[in-house]
């Protein structure tokens, strides 16, 4: 016989809402990095949960390849370049049982989650790089022509699915487990606006897959400890932006996140978190230009030599604090501060080829080429690691548990 559970008491509902969703998804650095949210690996009572967040990042400083903090987003170009960016992120998470009538081992007894995340990003280029983009005097003689300032618009779409390996088998009785383990995997769909001629865009044009193993624990009353590790693999970007200075093949990312949250009393929760990501070496080909080209010899011009170039990989460590408050039983409001503590961006040596006379057609009679100078260039897109603080304001809503289907919220007797 199936009967509906008694209504949740306030504490249980707060707990359910607290543990809502959207541990923000790990992503490339041109798209803001994730900030761990408390209770992100906790099994929830079946239902649908919505999330909306606004993030602001000035992105006017960055880490170079040696790990030094520099006062520009593009340190190889004199002056301070900025890539200010504002993101609006919306997510919908669905915690659900599956095949519970079939008695399939494990699958029928635990709960699962599905998630889709949408994004809109407003970004632009300011400073010396913006001047380089706007300068069309070199368009006829180089490949740095028809450049654009930014590619704002909708962002990539992320979909995820996962199962609780441990700690969710009592979901019908709502007897929460102090320990839970979640495995989830996801796919990034590169639907986001992506300007192939701009140094910064809302989307990445790079499909990616990721997997996460997370552990949730409640060691003492009112506490939430979440620890996770993840790995993300990227497919090839068939059309690297800004003259090929964004990676054609992005290196895989491995990350680790941990958070400790404590209920301060009443409706307030304070979270401290740490995040550490390490990215493998990125590859670049073809590179068509650089904003800091070497001076060509007299009666010549130059262009980047053909080749496959690699950087030394990227890194980022952040820490931060978050304050969350519950407004009623369905709303959660949050304010989050994320501070980068260390990092490394992608940079690499780019050799040039001289061409004499300028503008001649390579291969034509009388057009000669020779080896030119090598310059150290900044990589863009996911290879840039910024050193700026980020602030996030978020709102979360629990859609009614007045079950859209008749069986959820029932228990078998």
């Amino acid at each position, binding site marked *: 016989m199936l009967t509906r559970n008694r209504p949740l008491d306030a504490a249980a509902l707060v707990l359910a809402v607290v543990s809502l969703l959207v541990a923000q998804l790990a992503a490339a650095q041109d798209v803001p990095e994730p900030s761990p949210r408390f209770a992100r690996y906790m099994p929830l009572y079946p239902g649908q949960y919505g999330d909306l967040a606004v993030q602001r990042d000035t992105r006017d400083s960055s880490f170079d390849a040696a790990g030094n903090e520099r006062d520009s987003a593009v340190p190889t170009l004199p002056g301070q370049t900025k890539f200010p960016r504002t993101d609006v992120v919306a997510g919908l998470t669905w915690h659900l049982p*599956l095949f519970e009538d079939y008695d399939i081992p494990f699958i029928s007894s635990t709960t699962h989650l599905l998630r*889709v995340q949408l994004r809109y990003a407003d970004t632009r280029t300011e400073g010396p790089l913006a001047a380089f983009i706007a300068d069309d005097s070199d368009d006829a003689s180089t490949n740095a022509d*028809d450049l654009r300032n930014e590619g704002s*618009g*909708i962002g990539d*779409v992320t*979909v995820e699915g996962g199962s609780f390996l441990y700690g969710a088998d009592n979901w019908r009785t709502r007897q929460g487990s102090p320990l839970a383990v979640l495995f989830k995997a996801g796919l990034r*769909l*590169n*639907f*986001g*606006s*992506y300007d*192939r*001629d701009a140094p910064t865009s809302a*989307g990445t*044009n790079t*499909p990616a897959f990721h997997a996460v193993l997370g552990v949730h624990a409640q060691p003492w009353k009112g506490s939430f400890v979440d620890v996770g590790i993840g790995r993300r693999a990227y497919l*090839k970007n*068939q*059309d690297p932006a800004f003259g090929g200075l964004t990676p054609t093949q992005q290196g895989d990312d491995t990350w680790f996140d941990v958070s400790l949250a404590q209920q301060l009393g009443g409706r307030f929760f304070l979270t401290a978190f740490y995040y550490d990501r390490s990215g493998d070496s990125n590859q670049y080909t*073809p590179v068509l230009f650089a904003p800091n080209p070497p001076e060509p010899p007299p009666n010549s011009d130059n262009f980047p030599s053909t080749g496959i170039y690699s950087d030394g990989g990227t890194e980022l460590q952040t820490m931060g604090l978050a304050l969350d408050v519950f407004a009623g039983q369905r709303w959660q409001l949050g304010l989050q501060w994320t501070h980068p503590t260390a990092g490394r961006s992608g940079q690499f040596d780019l050799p040039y080829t001289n061409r004499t006379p300028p503008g001649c*057609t390579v*291969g*034509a*009679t009388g*057009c000669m080429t020779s080896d030119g100078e090598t310059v150290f260039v900044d990589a863009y897109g996911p290879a840039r690691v910024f050193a700026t603080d980020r602030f996030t304001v978020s709102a979360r809503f629990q859609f009614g548990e007045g079950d*859209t*289907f*008749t*069986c*959820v919220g029932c228990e078998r007797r």
Partner: protein
Amino acid sequence: MRRLILICTLMLACSAAHAAIVFTPHLSEYSILPAGPYAELTFITTEIEEIYDRDGEEIELGRPFVPAGDSTDAALGLFKYLWVGNVFRDTNVPILKDRNQFCRGIGVLGYQQNTGNIAARVRLFGHRPGANGIGDFFGLCGIYGKEHRWGPLKFNGLFATTVKFPIGDYDTDAALNIGTNYWTYIPQFAWHAELWGRLYIDGTFAYQFNDNNDEPSFGGLTPTRIANYRNLEMNFAWKFSEHWFVDIGYSYRESVGSNHYDQLTVNFKDQPLSPQSACDNTNNNLGLEVISQELCDNPASDQFFLNPRPGPYSDNGIRGRLLTMGIYYVYRTSSVLQMRVAQPVGGRGGQFTATYDVCLSQPCGPDNSVSTVDAELFAVQEAGAVSASPYLELRLVHLFWAP
């Protein structure tokens, strides 16, 4: 010289992937649904390695100017919202008061990208090899007919009209686009039948009125005057249990007449062209000798300029036939999970013969042309290209609030 140029300008077969698949019917697509709001999330992905030419032959994408193996990769996310109800229920409006109405909105997000050598070749023409972003918006409203029963047979019809609003991202300098930049109006008759409660049949006939596109993309390889299309689709589903269904479907579409191309400008970005450039674009990429190396190396060949004559040109019209197979799982009473594979089984793509002037100086045109060459060009994007490669569809339908 003439031969060199001919081979230079023959090029490119890029495709797009999303016109017909937005409407391909599914299980109970046209049945009278209970009043309520329905949401649907559909993901479609394909790797187009072959397209149909104007003779209906399958050809490898990019051939003969890039080696086989590269493709046009595409993925679409469709977000559909369907409302079913009767706003005339408490009125005396004849016909409408006792027949439910429905309206549906379809938002599209997409990604289309030429890969490898095809992308590199697109860049030779100064265009972008791919596109990402928001697609056109489809809005439709319609009315159900009444349900009829005849022994084990239960059936109904419906009429609807769809408008495609060209709000999608569209770049005239891109070889592929998510948006189309032209309006479309689609009146549609459809029907649904159930036999013995096991066999579910859905079908539709739709006529697609396409407006003009006065800003074609990729140098005019998308049509400016787009032919209208007729679409006929049938889907047969078998119910194994309340939870499990399988289906097989057939989709046919063809243009009524030809597409017309009035603004052809596609050309090599960097000119003049050297003989070696011609060889680099033919022999070296193909791996076989189309023109002799002696000719490539001959300084007397000198350099030359090309310029296309803008048109008008016409293709032979397009046609596509598609077979679909899928499996459904109905989760509780609120959700449907579905996976489907679609395999093209025949088609004809847009292709036309364009004329290029060959000059020794600029500006190049008929006034200073030393000769002309004819080039076989493939049309691109959804109005002109027909994929011969399969696609995969994953779909989630969810009833937000139970009626």
